């Protein structure tokens, strides 16, 4: 076969295009984007605004460490108003504008995670963490790209009930908000209580904000409960319920779950209403930020916070809500880096595979020891107790796994 000059040039150009085009298309991004929706307005704006600074800290920290295989990362955070449809719209928008540069997303509610889950298919799929500990999400078969950065709400109920049983409790009340978040662990909680021989004497649902405290406290008093689990609240209702019960003279021991365990809220209540939260206990997946002697990663955060947030309350304290976001981002980065270092594309499938393979991870202090991802969650936590005198939550149990 012979080529004349024109045929040779044309064939050469076609071959170059055929071989080179995919390489051009798959060229490494100049930067990777991690998107996020936060409730900067709306009913949970308090939490959203405390979490938001964590993203700027994370961007600085991760980029100082070399980003993902030397490529810098950038966060795109948007307000959702705690409306799942807004989070979905934010996700679709950042997907459209950033394309393949978008490698992970941080969502802001159980509702949003469930709404977005069916969208995570093919080219539209990305690894997705969130503020949620919803039990339904901890299932790689149905939610392969979504993960929890701690124990599910069901796990948290398990930990609390085990602790109540160990303390000799027998009659418990469960008071929860009338939200998806509040109802999440109920059925499982009933089964766990039966398994442990605990009698649930009251199941009471309340509004998530502005609940009718006298009515709920009256029912709690009538139930004869020794222990009461409060679940599905963030800044309100749980303190008022405890305060009301104390005024009522009820000797009930109160227990909370992750979102009702923030020191900033407990401190503010104590300052304004007195030390009635004394003895309040709850399950917390992470070490508190002030307990960082054995937490080198927290020490790095603290040094950065001092520099980045000087003159603000964030200078010295990172809320548990922000720690949850940081833990979620650490897990995502670990999976992304492992994928990139293995020479693989940062597709949702590749990254999710690396995420689910995280084993014996030394988190640098978030948890009591090395942890592993099992069913896209980390099922560990411990019980802390609040002291109005020291204004600290201190551990009242060992690290418990589920």
């Amino acid at each position: 076969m012979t080529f004349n000059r024109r045929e040779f040039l044309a064939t050469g150009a076609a071959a170059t295009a055929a071989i080179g085009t995919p390489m051009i298309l798959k060229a490494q991004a100049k930067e990777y984007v991690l998107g996020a929706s936060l409730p900067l307005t709306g009913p949970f704006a308090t939490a959203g605004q405390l979490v938001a600074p964590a993203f700027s800290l994370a961007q600085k920290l991760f980029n100082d460490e070399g980003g993902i295989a030397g490529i810098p990362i950038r966060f795109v955070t948007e307000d959702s108003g705690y409306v799942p449809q807004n989070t979905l719209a934010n996700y679709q928008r950042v997907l459209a504008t950033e394309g393949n540069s978008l490698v992970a997303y941080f969502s802001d509610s159980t509702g949003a995670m469930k709404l977005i889950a069916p969208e995570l298919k093919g080219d539209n799929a990305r690894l997705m963490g969130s503020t949620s500990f919803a039990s339904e999400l901890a299932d790689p078969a149905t939610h392969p790209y979504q993960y929890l950065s701690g124990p599910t709400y069901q796990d948290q109920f398990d930990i609390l009930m085990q602790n109540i049983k160990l303390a000799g409790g027998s009659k418990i009340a469960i008071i929860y908000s009338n939200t998806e978040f509040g109802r999440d662990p109920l059925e499982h909680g009933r089964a766990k209580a039966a398994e442990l021989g605990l009698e649930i004497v009251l199941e009471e649902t309340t509004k998530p904000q502005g609940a009718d405290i006298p009515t709920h406290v009256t029912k709690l008093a009538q139930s004869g409960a020794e222990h009461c689990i409060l679940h599905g609240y963030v800044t309100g209702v749980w303190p008022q319920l405890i305060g009301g019960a104390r005024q009522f003279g009820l000797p009930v021991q109160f227990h909370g779950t992750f979102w009702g365990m923030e020191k900033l809220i407990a401190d503010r209540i104590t300052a304004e209403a007195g030390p009635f939260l004394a003895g309040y206990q709850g399950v917390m997946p992470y070490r508190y930020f002030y307990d960082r002697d054995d937490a080198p990663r927290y020490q790095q955060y603290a040094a950065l916070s001092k520099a980045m947030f000087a003159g603000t309350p964030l200078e010295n304290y990172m809320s548990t809500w922000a720690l949850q976001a940081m833990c979620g981002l650490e897990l995502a980065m670990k999976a992304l880096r492992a994928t990139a270092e293995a020479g693989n594309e940062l597709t949702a499938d590749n990254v999710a595979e690396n995420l689910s393979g995280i084993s014996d991870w030394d988190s640098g202090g978030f948890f009591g020891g090395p942890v592993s991802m099992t069913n896209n969650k980390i099922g560990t936590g411990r019980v802390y107790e609040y002291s109005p005198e020291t204004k600290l939550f201190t551990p009242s149990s060992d690290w418990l796994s589920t």
Partner: protein
Amino acid sequence: MGQFTQFAINGLMSGAIYALIAVGIVSVYKATKVVNFAHGYLIMFGAYFYFTFAVIIPGQEWAPEWLASWKPSWMLEMRKGLGMFSPLGAVLDWMANIPRILLGLVGAVSCNAILGRVVERTLMRPLMGQSVFAMIMVTVGLISILSGSASLIWTADAAFVPHIAPNTPIRFELFGTMIFLFGADIVNMLIALLIFGGIVTMVKFTKAGIAIRATAEDQSTAYSMGISVPKVFSNAWVLASTTGAVAGAILATRNGISPSLGLFGFSVLAIVLMGGLDSYVGCFIAAMSVGVLEAMTQWKMGGEWAAIVPYVAVLVVIIFRPHGLMGQKEVERI
């Protein structure tokens, strides 16, 4: 029977707060025919003003110490040895907060009055003579302005404020059942009822009240009779804002301060529709009924039903009496 009484009282206490919120919506409607969808956010501003004057200002370094905590020696002496929730202890703890509570209330009412007047003069007055629908849409837009402004000024941080009245626990036996009430809730209810009663009396017996009623009947005729309709509009907004300030302060003491306070207005809108948009008495009956119905449903059927049953009752009333329990039949609705 004792149990029934307990939950009925709980419901009446909630109902009184609903009535205090409703009075603002009715006042504006009576005078201007505008359904103020932003009323909940005026209440939220009242709560934040109360927070500013009762917590932020007394906490400043330059503020006198007695403003933050007034504790004369006799009070310290009396407080010694009393438990946190002892009745006398609770009263003394509250008394230490009296200066900042008063400052908070005066500040909240004054600032909200100014806010109400500004809203009326800048947003509503220019639309006089235009369709009522346009004015209603402005109140919808006002929601975004007020909620955004609150976030800018106070951020979304949750905070807590001192009770307006001593939160002394009150216990007594009735029909063999121990009844338990919160002192602050009883006082809040009395404050709400007093304000409500005062406004109804004012509307019925004073010149300003007659002007409001005349304007509500027919603005053109009221004009021709020498009533300054713009002034009536303005007064109605100020009245709604000031009562909203008190309602906001009370809500803040019950639920803490957060941007979600603005959402209370929406649930009360349904109550106002049930009572009749232009009827103070109708709204009072509706507010009390919904409060009691909520408490009873919570007691007997649980919270899932408590969120539904009272509002089903509202719908039923509206189906059979579209103008509400005591509203005027010719009321034009949106």
